[in-house]
C-alpha cells in the first residue's frame, strides 16, 4: 500500500493554478519534489497537509483520506516546512516538551537518543541553532513520535555543502528499514542526484513527470551542434533551445533523438532538464 497518494490535487489563485497533481509514494523510498521557485512545490505540500484548502482532488495517507482522518494521520507524519523559525526564542527542550504532549506515542528515550546523536543541546534557544540544526531538531521531534511519512519543504536550502550532505545521509538512513518514506521539495538538483529514488517534477503548477530518478534523466537528451543545422522542423522537436557563440544546445526527449542524428547527443543533468523546461516558449536565438 502507498504511504502517500495524491490524486488530482488542484488549487487556483488569481495568478497561479495548480493543475491536477497526482503522484504516489511507497514505504521505504525517498521522493524528490523539484521545480523552480514559484513552480507550486510549497502549494502542493501545503495542500497535501490541508493548510491550503485545495479546490479539488484528494490525499490518501496509509490508505486513508487525509482530510477525513486528519488528527489520526498527523500522528504518523513529520513535517518541516520552510519556516523553521517558529517560537525561535524558546529553548529546544521547552518546545519539545510542549509538542510531546500532543503525541500519545511519544518516545522520550528515542527523543534523548536522537538529541545526543544530533548534538542538540536542550538549553539552546532555537534562534541559536543553525538552519541545519533546526531541521535536525524538527526531524528529532518527528522521529520521537514514530512518524512514518516525512514531508520537508526545501530542507537543504541555506545549508552549507557539508551540512547538506550530512542531512541527506540521515534521510537515506531513515528509509533504510523500509517502513519510512520521505517526500522533500527542493530546487537544489544535486541533492536529488545524491538522495532520491523518485523524482516528481512540477513546472508552473503542472506535474511534468513522476518517475524514478534514473528514468527521469534517461527520458531526455542534450543536443548540441551548429546553429545553421537547426531547422524549424528540428526546433519544433526541442523542449527549448539556446543559441550561443559555438552553435546551439537544446533539450529533447530521448524518443526524438533519432531526428538529431549527426548532432552531439549527451545525457542531461537534472539541472539541465529543469532549466530547459523553464525556458519553454522563451528560446534564446
Amino acid at each position, binding site marked *: 500500500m502507498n504511504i502517500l497518494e495524491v490524486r488530482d490535487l488542484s488549487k487556483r489563485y488569481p495568478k497561479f493554478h495548480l493543475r491536477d497533481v497526482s503522484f504516489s509514494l511507497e514505504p521505504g523510498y525517498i521522493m524528490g519534489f523539484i521545480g523552480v521557485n514559484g513552480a507550486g512545490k510549497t502549494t502542493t505540500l*501545503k495542500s497535501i*497537509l490541508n*493548510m*491550503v*484548502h485545495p479546490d479539488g482532488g484528494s490525499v490518501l495517507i496509509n490508505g486513508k483520506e487525509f482530510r477525513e482522518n*486528519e*488528527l*489520526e494521520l*498527523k*500522528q504518523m507524519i513529520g*513535517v518541516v*516546512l520552510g*519556516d523553521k*523559525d*517558529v*517560537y*525561535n*526564542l*524558546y529553548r529546544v527542550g*521547552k*518546545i519539545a*516538551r*510542549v*509538542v510531546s*504532549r*500532543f*503525541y500519545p506515542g511519544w518516545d522520550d528515550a528515542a527523543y534523548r537518543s536522537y538529541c545526543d546523536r544530533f548534538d542538540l543541546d536542550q538549553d539552546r534557544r532555537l534562534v541559536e541553532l543553525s538552519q541545519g540544526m533546526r531541521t535536525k531538531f524538527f526531524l528529532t521531534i518527528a522521529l520521537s513520535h514514530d512518524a512514518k511519512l516525512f514531508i520537508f519543504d526545501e530542507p537543504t536550502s541555506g545549508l552549507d555543502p557539508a551540512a547538506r550532505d550530512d542531512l541527506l545521509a540521515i534521510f537515506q538512513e531513515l528509509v533504510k528499514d523500509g517502513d519510512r518514506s520521505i517526500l522533500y521539495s527542493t530546487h537544489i538538483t544535486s541533492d536529488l542526484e545524491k538522495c532520491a529514488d523518485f523524482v516528481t517534477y512540477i513546472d508552473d503548477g503542472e506535474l511534468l513527470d513522476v518517475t524514478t530518478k534514473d528514468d527521469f534523466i534517461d527520458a531526455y537528451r542534450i543536443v548540441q551542434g551548429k546553429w545553421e543545422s537547426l531547422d524549424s522542423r528540428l526546433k519544433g522537436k526541442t523542449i527549448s533551445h539556446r543559441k550561443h557563440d559555438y552553435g546551439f544546445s537544446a533539450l529533447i526527449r530521448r524518443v526524438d533523438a533519432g531526428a538529431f542524428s549527426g548532432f552531439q547527443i549527451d545525457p542531461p543533468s537534472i539541472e539541465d532538464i529543469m532549466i530547459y523546461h523553464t525556458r519553454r516558449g522563451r528560446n534564446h536565438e
Partner: protein
Amino acid sequence: MNNLLRKEFGLTIHPMYVGAAFIFGALAMIPQWPYLIIPFYFCWVTVPTLMGRLKTNKDNQFSALLPVPRRAVVAARVMSFSILELLHVIAAGIGSAVHLAVFGPENFALQLGLGYLGVCLVIYGVFNVVLFPMYYRTAEKFGLPLILAIVVSAVVAGAAEVLVGVSEPVAAVLENRVAAGVPALLGGAIVFVLLGYVAFRVSAKRYETVQL
C-alpha cells in the same frame, strides 16, 4: 484542549502577562478615578503584544502541524485570553477591596464593588466578540480588529458611566445598592461567557477557511 491550553501558557503567554494583571489591578487603589479604564490596560498593552508574538512566532504554522483540529486551536486561544481577562477582573477585585477598606465607596465616576466587576466582564465580553471574529478572517492581521474592539468596548464603558449618572435604577444595580452588586456581577459573568462563546463559534468557522 488541555494540551493546547498548556501550549498557550507555555509558549505564547509569558508569565509576565499574568503578573501584569495584578499590577493593573492595583490601579483600583487610586482614589477618585474613572476605574473603568483599568480593564482597558489589558486591551492596550497585553493583547497587542501577545498578538504580535503569535505573528512573529508563526503560531499558525506551528499549530497547523499539530494533531489538533483548527477549531480547538481557536477555542484554546479564546479561552486563554478569557482566563487572562478573568485574572484582570480578579486583580481589580482585590484592588477594589483594598480601596473600599481604605477610602470607602465614594467616587466621582462609577464606584468600585461587585457591580463594577460585572461591568468589566461585559467590557471584556464585547471586546472578545469584536476582536476574535475579525482577527480570524486572516489569523494574522490584528491592527484593525484590535482598534475596533477597543473602540466598541470603550463605548460600552462610556455608556455604563453615562447610565449610572442619569439613571438611578441603573446606578443602584451597578453601584452595589441592589443585593450588594451580586446581580450585576452575575449578569456581567453571563454576558462574558455568552459573548465568548459567540466569539469562538464565529472565529472557528472563519479560521477553517484561512489559507495558512
